[in-house]
């Protein structure tokens, strides 16, 4: 059946409508998970708050395992999914810059907007810096265009590179994520004296 637009079930005109709905849902989940607070986000680097790790790992493993089942039941064809091309040197450097930015600013681009939506000044300052960074990057792009486009591996997945079935990667990632949940929970209990354990 899916993906819906490539298979002609809905037209490409729906792209922006879906983007808005997914964006609203994404923003809501970020805010509801406490990501509009830079303390929660930066806490993972200082080892006292691991909510970021748990929320992101939960999203990743649910999506990974869910997509594999969706593909099996024929609800989505994974071979038709768009895969971003891998430019490994630029992505490596970009990851390091993003990590430093995350640590110093206490937000990532998405969470800074959720912070603005609840009226936080630090989120606003971060976003101004974000646009400044985009402007500087765009203006100086010709200087590092060669590096930006270097090391293109194409639309590859881990399965393409290693030949190992995607399910094994999903399984390994779930094990790592679940282990991380329990270990970080124990760390938090030791480090933080006043900890609220959420009940559901």
């Amino acid at each position, binding site marked *: 059946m899916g993906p819906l637009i490539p298979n002609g079930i809905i037209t490409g005109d729906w792209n922006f409508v879906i983007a808005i709905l997914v964006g609203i849902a994404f923003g809501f989940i970020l805010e509801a998970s406490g990501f509009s607070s830079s303390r929660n986000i930066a806490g993972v680097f200082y080892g006292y708050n691991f909510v970021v790790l748990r929320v992101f790992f939960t999203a990743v*493993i*649910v999506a990974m*395992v869910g997509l*594999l*089942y969706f*593909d*099996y039941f*024929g609800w989505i064809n994974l071979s038709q999914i768009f895969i971003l091309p891998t430019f490994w040197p630029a992505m490596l450097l970009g990851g390091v810059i993003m990590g430093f930015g995350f640590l110093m600013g206490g937000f990532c681009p998405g969470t800074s907007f959720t912070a603005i939506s609840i009226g936080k000044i630090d989120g606003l300052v971060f976003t101004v810096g974000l646009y400044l960074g985009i402007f500087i990057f765009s203006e100086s792009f010709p200087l590092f265009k060669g590096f930006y486009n270097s090391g293109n591996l194409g639309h590859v997945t881990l399965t393409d590179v290693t030949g190992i*079935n995607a*399910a*094994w990667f*999903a*399984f390994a990632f*779930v*094990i790592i994520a*679940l282990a991380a*949940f*329990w270990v970080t*929970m124990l760390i938090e209990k030791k480090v933080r004296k006043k900890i609220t*354990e959420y*009940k*559901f």
Partner: protein
Amino acid sequence: MNRNYLFLTLIMLVLAAGTLFLKKTPEYKQIKPETLLWDIIQPTRYVSTDQVAKMIIDKDPSLELVDVRDVNSFEKFALANAVNVPLDSLLSPVSQDYFGLPGIKVVFYSNDDIAADQAWVITRRMGYGGTYVMKGGLNQWIETIIQPKEPREDEPYTAFEQYQFRKGVQMYFTGTKVENTIAKKKKVVVRRKKKQVAASGGC
């Protein structure tokens, strides 16, 4: 320790382990047998050599000629801008990049139209639209385009028009010159009367 966390962890673990046992048999997308049968009995998939020739000459960007013969035959002779997709490699992912492009008319041809017809049936069954077969294949191409026969005198006017078209196309593809049908004019020889020379001499 919250019991719910333990429960969720176990569910996630079981679901992740379950993905290791998912064996998906590759399924080809295909159309309904009734639709395929209906399409097969329609002659609309055939295009004539004249139509193909006109599209080549017009440099029609929507035309994609696909030669389904083997590589050796393709290298010996092929139509202009044709791509070679031998019948036995029709299902390879590289070959399938040629099919199903919006606005592109894929025209299969082979020596006759049997192999081309088979390629058409397979691609049609896989759900690709916009595919056609060059009627008669390259044999028909030689008969009609490269060596067109002059119609008999009692044939209708359209046959003569078609012949003229084919002669033009023949010129385009082979570079031969059309014989001038108009009889060569004979050089007019002007005979002039000899001027009478005035009588001279005399007695």
